[in-house]
């Protein structure tokens, strides 16, 4: 420590001291540098100290400090009454405090802080922590006596902004009120947080109680938190969304209220109880939401917590509405398990989940087990929900084991569904990167014995009778649009059912293929409502936006391919000539056919 000082005693040689002035050029201590220290004392006007300092990190700003006691009494008890402290560090920090200090020694003192006002405009070099015109008002007291140390503080922040990456808080909109009282036993270092209550305007409040023991061999910091969130909507916006930046749920919306009670020991959560009331969660990017969520969740870091309950009144996955459901869950340290069959109504059917297990939550090794059946859902209602042309029939089936590993959702077995009196199986279904920037679906599909009459019945495409098989291999969906597949649809081999195709269906097949329409309705064939056919076949190899088409086989002329092979008289063969069709064009044609014919259906 380097001290350069000058002492000036003013007053007559025999008289009492009237004034003492002390100047110290510089004091360098660990973590503290004082410059131009000046202290003065006069019996009438009290005492004052003034210095220039460089504030320690993280503020690290030059500042001037002034301390002044209106009445300084020195004796058994040294007291500074009506004291005032000012600190001026420019825009970084302005602080002004007033109060009284009574000092009998380091073991017995008392500080009464009548008022403290601070304006903080701090910004760390890396920009991760910053505040702008953050205004704090506080008052409190601290004392030490035989019973130890006690402190009590009341703090309000009602204007300015604060940013602690990634959280941003505008205190003008959400004023903060904090009151805390702390205790420390004599001679000990264990700090007990008797209470700390914190209210954030428009969001909620929290109370904390705990103990901090920096000297214990294994640090034993215990904190009990109880938070009451009155607005989950604001809490999600301020506290959840910033953490979710760069994921597919960074637009998370929430509503309702929540109560959380948790115990944290050594920064590790030990137990948590969460109640949700009339809560709602949704994400447009992910395309899902649940409303009217009531939950009573119990979690323990080790040991078995009581069973948890989760219920909602309605929800949606994409355009698919979900009904009310209630789940009994057992939460595990890093996962959960379903205790009872979970029934989720979907339209007139529903999903019955028998097994649902999640493990490794919050880590990269997230895994899931899933087993469910789909109770038959009316296809017409399903199509209405998705805005598709209405198909008749039902869809149902079994959803076999599902596993989530390495950013990939994989179904172990086959997914089966019954629709149009036939069967649809989905094999090798995988969802890649389900929560990432590029969610993709890949699968192989097989269609067996689909009743074409049912399929075309509601669809205003034209009536076709017969049975249809199909194989779609290497189907890849990106954003729910097929981008690659090798699709093959064909009349079920050996099918003995009635094979008829209506004039309109033939017309539509030929117009989608780019051929002329209305050919049949002009000639003598217009008297025939429908025709017998032998086989239908269509193949599309989709790659890079182009569908390479084919049919049952080559046409007689060697250039085209047969889409519909007629039978008996009058025999009609439909031959396609376009080999490469842009997928977008093909879809547009299919759509326009469906729309154009919708009017005709109404006339009939």
């Amino acid at each position, binding site marked *: 420590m380097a001290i350069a000082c000058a002492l000036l005693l003013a007053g007559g040689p025999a008289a009492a001291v009237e004034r003492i002035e002390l100047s110290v050029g510089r004091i360098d201590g660990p973590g503290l540098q004082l410059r131009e220290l000046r202290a003065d004392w006069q019996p009438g006007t009290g005492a004052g100290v003034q210095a220039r300092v460089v504030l320690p990190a993280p503020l690290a700003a030059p500042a001037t400090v002034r301390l002044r006691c209106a009445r300084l009494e020195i004796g058994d008890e040294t007291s500074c009454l009506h004291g005032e402290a000012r600190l001026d560090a420019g825009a970084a920090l302005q602080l002004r405090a007033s109060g009284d200090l009574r000092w009998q020694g380091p073991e017995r003192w008392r500080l009464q802080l009548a008022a403290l006002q601070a304006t903080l405009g701090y*910004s760390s070099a*890396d*920009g*991760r922590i*910053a*505040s*702008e015109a953050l205004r704090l008002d506080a008052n409190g007291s601290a004392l030490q006596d035989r019973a130890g140390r006690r402190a009590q503080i009341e703090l309000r922040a009602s204007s300015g*902004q*604060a*940013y602690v*990456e*990634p959280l*941003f808080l*505008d205190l003008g909109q959400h004023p903060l009120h904090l009151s805390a009282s702390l205790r420390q036993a004599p001679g000990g270092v264990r700090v007990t947080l008797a209470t700390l209550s914190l209210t954030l305007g428009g969001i909620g409040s929290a109370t904390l109680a705990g103990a901090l023991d920096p000297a214990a061999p294994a640090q034993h910091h215990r904190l009990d938190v109880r938070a009451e969130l009155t607005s989950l909507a604001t809490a999600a916006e301020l506290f959840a969304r*910033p953490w979710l*930046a*760069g*994921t597919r749920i*960074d637009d998370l919306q929430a509503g309702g209220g929540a109560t959380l009670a948790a115990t944290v020991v050594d920064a590790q959560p030990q137990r948590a109880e969460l109640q949700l009331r009339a809560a709602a969660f949704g994400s447009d990017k992910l395309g899902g939401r649940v409303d009217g969520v009531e939950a009573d969740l119990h979690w323990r870091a080790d040991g078995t917590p009581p069973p948890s309950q989760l219920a909602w009144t309605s929800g949606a996955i994409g355009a698919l509405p979900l009904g009310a459901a209630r789940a009994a869950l057992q939460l595990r340290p890093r996962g959960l398990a379903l205790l009872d069959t979970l029934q989720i109504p979907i339209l007139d059917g529903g999903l019955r989940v028998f097994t649902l297990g999640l493990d490794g939550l919050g880590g990269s090794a997230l895994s899931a087990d899933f087993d469910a059946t789909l109770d038959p859902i009316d296809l017409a209602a399903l199509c209405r929900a998705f805005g598709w042309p209405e198909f008749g029939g039902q869809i149902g089936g079994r959803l076999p084991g599902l596993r989530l590993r390495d950013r990939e959702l994989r179904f172990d077995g086959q997914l089966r569904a019954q629709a149009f009196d036939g069967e649809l199986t989905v094999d090798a279904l995988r969802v890649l*990167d389900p929560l*990432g*920037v*590029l969610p*993709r679906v890949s699968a192989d599909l097989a269609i067996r014995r689909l009743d074409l009459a049912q399929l075309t019945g509601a669809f205003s495409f034209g009536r076709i009778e017969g049975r249809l098989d199909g194989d779609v291999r290497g189907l*890849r969906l*990106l*954003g729910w649009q097929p*981008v*690659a597949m090798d699709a093959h649809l064909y009349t079920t081999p050996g099918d003995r059912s009635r094979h008829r195709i209506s004039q309109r269906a033939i017309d539509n097949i030929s117009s989608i293929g780019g051929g002329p329409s209305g050919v049949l309705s002009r000639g003598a064939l217009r008297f025939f409502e429908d025709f017998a056919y032998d086989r239908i076949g269509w193949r599309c190899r989709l790659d*890079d*936006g182009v569908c390479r088409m084919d049919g049952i086989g080559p046409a007689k002329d060697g250039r085209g391919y047969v889409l519909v092979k007629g039978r008996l008289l009058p025999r009609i063969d439909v031959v396609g000539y376009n080999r490469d069709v842009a997928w977008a064009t093909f879809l547009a044609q299919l759509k326009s056919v469906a729309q154009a014919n919708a009017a005709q259906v109404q006339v009939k």
Partner: protein
Amino acid sequence: MKPVRTHSGLIAALAGAAVAAACVTINVYFPAAAAEKAADRIIDDVWSAAPKAPATTPEAAPSPQSALPAAQHVALAVLDWLVPPAQAQQQPNLDLSSPEISRLKTQMENRYADLKPLFDAGTVGLTQDGYVAVRDPNAVPLASRNTVRTLVANENADRAALYREIATANGQPQWESQIRGVFAQRWIAKAQPGWWYQAAGGQWQRK
């Protein structure tokens, strides 16, 4: 006779092993030049998607290329097709036609309108490892700091996926980091004057 037979057997075995080894070892070298071209094509697409500056008058717009007669264009194209550059024959192009790549590119093109002002202002810069980063967070008002952070996080998520998808689309997933390295150089090389980038040492520099 006996030692001779053993000897020839040994030679045969060695020769067989050599042949087997020669068959098994397949070296697929990273096509650096092709990767550079591929990167340039994507970067041009992503960074040309900016909304036209209102100051640009239509008279100033016509490029010298569009003034070329169409016939000349066709002739050049035919010539290119007949006599392909020797380099193109030896070095295969990287396939950029996968739908995943197109989709990521579209997402990045759409985001560029928001990112460009930040590049121009020097708030966000190009990192040496093929991503973007907030260079000067203190230049952003507190209230919009998270918006910038989200924008940067989303761009980086797309870039990471893009590098991975290009490697996957070409059947060489192990090329991912090399592709990222090539992109890192090309983003910086194609950056507009005044933008900031990270030099090899990690320090920020203005172009």
